């Protein structure tokens, strides 16, 4: 194999994939090197762009705001957030996000994963825990379940026999009690059976549907209710989602959606698979290998040492994009010390560079609280070039994107995949020549 590329992207989650796809536009030869899947494949299907920084959990639905306003508010309030870093450099992250969304919308549409058209307001989607969350964008099959659009409409939560991870009765009751009085719903629950599914997780349920259970399943649904919106568990196909939707429609089930997911997440896997297909379609080389180390000289990254089938190989490039994620993806480690794993870049939590610091100092007492440790990452300038402790640029030909960046919690801030899309888009454009 020829190991020389124009741009090498490390990581293939949302940030890495968007960066690679954007860089392809420059006509350059692109490779993606990844150890495995990252947190994108485990995501709920919601593509969070910007949650309201003034919001509090459990507040009334009416407070849902425009994501672009939220984004600007985040950039104004939180100086370490990637949105703020971009804004401080004279960028307009809200407008650039609109461009980036348009871009990823087209790319995913082209490989058979339609996204729900983005509007100003965040979508309000239900989750398998009996609650709901605001999110900027979602897969079409999930976005159709926007509670705002279903206000006053009879909504049936469909449980699947032998699928305990989606307790439809509980979800319907919780929604009815929490938001029913505000005019949403009414919510009720029904249990259905998937032919060939005798128990397990949503993965097994989706596999049974994809195997040969879809038609019988759809025909059983046809009689449930014509005037109600049906909300399924997130099981409508891992790789054949479109065919399953068409089968449902063929049997007259027109008004339906999927809820958000928890891992094992079919929508997350579906999203990552679609990104893979988009990369393949654009001719990007994907290598499933681990980067061991990087070869740098003064202010330039020259090459990467990559482990391929137990051997080390050298990959050379003109430009490199670091999109390795945080703890889950492996971009940031906290074993004995806090560490960025490829280039050994300094890791920050807020203003503070961290290395041998005690992890407990960066955790709060509440399990779901805002743990500063989850905001650890590398610091970049407005062009997304990683910075050293003295704030000098580490290398002229290295950019970073996604949750390896410091200043935001990709799982808890309500901006996880939004930051990945925006920074991936920008890093890809910069590496490709600033187009």
């Amino acid at each position, binding site marked *: 194999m020829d190991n020389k590329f124009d741009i090498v992207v490390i990581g293939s989650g949302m940030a890495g994939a968007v960066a690679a796809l954007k860089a392809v536009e420059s006509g350059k030869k692109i490779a993606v090197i990844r*150890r*495995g*899947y*990252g*947190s994108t*494949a*485990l995501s709920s299907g919601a593509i969070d762009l910007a949650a309201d920084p003034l919001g509090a959990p459990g507040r009334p639905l009416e407070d849902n705001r425009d994501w672009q306003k939220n984004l600007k508010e985040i950039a104004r309030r939180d100086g370490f957030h990637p949105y703020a870093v971009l804004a401080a450099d004279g960028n307009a992250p809200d407008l650039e996000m609109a461009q980036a969304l348009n871009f990823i919308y087209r790319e995913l549409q082209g490989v058979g994963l339609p996204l729900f058209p983005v509007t100003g307001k965040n979508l309000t989607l239900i989750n398998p825990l009996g609650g709901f969350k605001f999110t900027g964008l979602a897969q079409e099959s999930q976005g159709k379940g926007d509670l705002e659009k279903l206000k006053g409409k009879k909504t049936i939560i469909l449980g699947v026999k032998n699928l305990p991870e989606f307790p439809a009765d509980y979800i319907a009751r919780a929604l009815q009690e929490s938001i029913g009085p505000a005019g949403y719903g009414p919510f009720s629950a029904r249990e259905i059976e998937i032919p060939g599914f005798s*128990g*397990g*997780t949503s*993965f*097994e349920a989706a*596999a049974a549907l994809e195997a040969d259970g879809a038609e019988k399943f759809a025909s059983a649904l046809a009689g449930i209710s014509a005037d109600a919106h049906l909300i399924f568990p997130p099981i409508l196909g*891992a790789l054949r989602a479109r065919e399953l939707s068409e089968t449902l429609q063929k049997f007259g089930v027109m008004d339906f959606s999927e809820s958000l997911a928890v*891992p*094992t997440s079919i929508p997350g*896997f579906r999203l990552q698979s679609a990104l893979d297909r988009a990369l393949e379609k654009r001719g990007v080389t994907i290598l*499933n290998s*681990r980067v061991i180390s990087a070869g740098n000289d003064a202010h330039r990254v020259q090459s990467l040492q990559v482990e391929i089938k137990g051997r080390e190989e050298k990959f050379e490039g003109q430009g490199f994009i670091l999109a390795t994620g945080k703890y*889950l*993806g*492996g971009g940031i480690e906290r074993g004995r010390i806090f560490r960025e794993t490829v280039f050994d870049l300094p890791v920050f939590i807020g203003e503070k560079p961290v290395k041998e610091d005690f992890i407990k100092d960066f955790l709060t007492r509440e399990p779901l609280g805002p743990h500063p440790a989850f905001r650890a990452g590398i610091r970049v300038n407005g062009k997304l070039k990683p910075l050293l402790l003295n704030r000098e640029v580490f290398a002229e030909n290295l950019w970073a994107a996604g949750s390896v960046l410091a200043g935001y919690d990709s799982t808890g801030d309500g901006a996880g995949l939004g930051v990945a899309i925006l920074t991936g888009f920008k890093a890809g454009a910069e590496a490709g020549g600033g187009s």
Partner: protein
Amino acid sequence: MKKQGYALINLGWYFALHIIELIFRFLGKKAPGMKRFRENYGAEGLAPLSRANRNNLFRLSGCIGCGLCRMTLNLHPAVGASLSDPESLSICLTRSLPDIQAARASLQLSPDSLSGNSFCPRGVSISGVYDFLQSADRERI
């Protein structure tokens, strides 16, 4: 000089004890440790763990049970719904008596089905899990 003398006396004393132990072992025909381990635990299916296996277990403990390996490698049909992630498989195989039979089912997997790329977010090698299970199974009486 005094310390050296003390060390030499200690060394000599423990060497003498070792010789005496060897004599008693020979006379009593007491089995070596590994054999005794197998006699005691083999019937229950517990295999001894080598240092390499222990290192493997540490690496496998990176599993977060996300289920992506089942999605990408189609592991589930062989191992059953309740034992589906590499970590629980490997740990239960070696130490958890009630789950041993269930874990053994994973050895029915075709190694070919695991030879593809691993998509694990934590970098756990699924084929490594399989190799580990096999080596542990070979150790069993």
